[in-house]
């Protein structure tokens, strides 16, 4: 393990920790005042926005690959995976099962379609 590698990991690790920790110092009355009004309304919605943006980012490589290749089989596999995730979540109301079965469905369609 080189010194450069350790330095990058430690710098990013400390920075990421501070991103997560420092905003908690807004707690208490000062933070309460700061979080009322438009800022509070913004923060109350940013969680859903974050997960939606992360979902878009996670799907982007699959969309781009299908677009570039023009191969609808990979897009179909992705659509089936997402549909199974949606269906299982509505059925069982569980994050883990929906996540795993959705990925499994994607892998099965990917294999059946001969994409390997």
């Amino acid at each position: 393990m080189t010194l450069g590698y350790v330095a990058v990991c430690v710098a990013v690790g400390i920075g990421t920790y501070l991103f997560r920790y420092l905003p908690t110092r807004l707690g208490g009355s000062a933070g309460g005042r700061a979080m009322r009004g438009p800022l509070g309304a913004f923060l109350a919605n940013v969680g859903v926005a974050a997960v939606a943006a992360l979902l878009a980012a996670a799907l982007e490589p699959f969309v781009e690959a299908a677009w570039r290749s023009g191969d609808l089989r990979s897009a179909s596999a992705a659509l089936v995976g997402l549909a199974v995730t949606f269906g299982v979540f509505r059925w069982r109301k569980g994050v883990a099962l929906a996540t795993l079965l959705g990925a499994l469905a994607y892998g099965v369609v990917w294999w059946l379609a001969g994409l390997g």
Partner: protein
Amino acid sequence: MAALYPLALRLALVSSPAQRPRFGGGLAASLPIALAYFPVAVSFGVAGAKAGFSLAETAFMSVVIYAGASQFLALALLAGGAGPLLAVVSLLALNARHLLYAPALLERLRRGADEAYARLRWPWLWAHGLTDEVFASALGRLSVRGARWSEAWQVGIGLGAYLAWVAGTVVGAVLGGGAFERWPAVDAALAFLMPTLFLSLLLAMVERRHWPVVVAAVGGFALGSTLFSASTGILVGMVAGGLAGAFGRAGGAT
């Protein structure tokens, strides 16, 4: 929303929503996240081995950074010979969205009039585990009217997810770069875990009034990633969605 509570929430209810949850409840609530993290972490460990990193190097990154998307990016940057400064700046830019998680969580507590909000003692401890999925699960728990929260619960859910991530990384690194060469479909399914995880989390959080937030977030991501990069797109999407919620119909408590 009542029909959409995540499994994490149900497992957390070793105590009822109205009781102050304990450390064990947090560990139980981490189970769905751990189940999803573990295979993703295995694929990270395998990717690290494929990129030429040792078991110690790959595990060290998971222990110290503990942020999945940026760790995959780190492998690509470092294996591609990017300079340390460029790597650090790029990875921190990707993780800057975490700045918004603790304030969003604390705002939910304040709106729920949970007195835990006013006397935080261990934020330095549970903040380390405030990843995308842990944040979303904590927010999901607090979506229940009258639900309580505690720092011990937050430490528990964070610790369970963290251990799964580190353990999965070690397993993947031990398996090595050729682990799934004979089973490319397994490799493909593992690669699709992140989209299904985020879709599940979104379904657990979203209500009808949030759709403008979702549309703005996806549009913001598309714009930011087209003009700049995917990590910039995530930040733009978060800000656009938050603004749409603040000034649009979704405006009030979430």
